[in-house]
């Protein structure tokens, strides 16, 4: 993901997550389920699978992201 795409993705995440706080804040002011949903959608857009493992296998070298 290049820098401009990442900034766009963050803007979208921040708006969706922080723009919709919990009605009755309990363990945290914002919805963790919403955060998870948006993160998975970003991962899915980039890798094709929102459940992809973090560890890169094969010849992948140190991540440059």
């Amino acid at each position, binding site marked *: 993901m290049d820098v401009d795409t990442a900034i766009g993705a963050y*803007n979208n995440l*921040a*708006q969706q*997550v*922080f*723009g919709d*706080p919990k009605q*009755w*804040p*309990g*363990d*945290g*002011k*914002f919805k*963790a389920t919403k*955060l*998870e949903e948006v*993160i*998975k959608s970003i*991962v899915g857009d980039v*890798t094709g699978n*929102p*459940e*992809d*493992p*973090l*560890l*890169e*296998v094969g010849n*992948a*070298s*140190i*991540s440059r992201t």
Partner: protein
Amino acid sequence: MDAGIPVLFRSYQSQETHSGCKIWEAARATSAAPTFFKHIEIGNKQPFIDGGLGCNNPSKLVLKEAQVVFPTHQIGCLVSIGAGQAEVISIGVPGFFQQIVPTHILDALKGISTDCERMHEDISLLFANSSNTYFRINVEQGMQDIKHSEWEKMANVEAHTIQYLRKKEVGEKLTLVISAIKSPKAQLMIEQFGINYFVI
């Protein structure tokens, strides 16, 4: 959940153990700032909270990791990017309806900006004899009034950042950063730092 023991989520093979988690779990765990989101449990019911509590400037951790992964390599450069000064990284005191947040966590929050700057000083000393190898980039002015959750103020963040980047000394520093990344001089062996520096 001990804020004093940071966990590294690695996306690369290493001799060190790795958590075997998913990408979204790692992202979720590093966002688990108390009073913002509830913590997350990964793998063997291990709870995680945001590293901002105990390790907001992980420069020494990065050097220690480099020592493990590349024991015989040299360091070309280290670029540390801050999130603005003081209040911008505070996450606020819990409100009336919040779950009670332990005092030691609130104390940790108050110390974040101090810790970041202290770490910067420590790393500057480590690289004192190696010019143009360590760089710290941090928007120093204007971010104080913008809270983490104020997504609608993104234009202000952009304006302050552009203003920072336009400063003469920052422009000069960035030129040196680019040159250090493109053609590193690699003056320092990683092992020269010595493991004793890395007691955190």
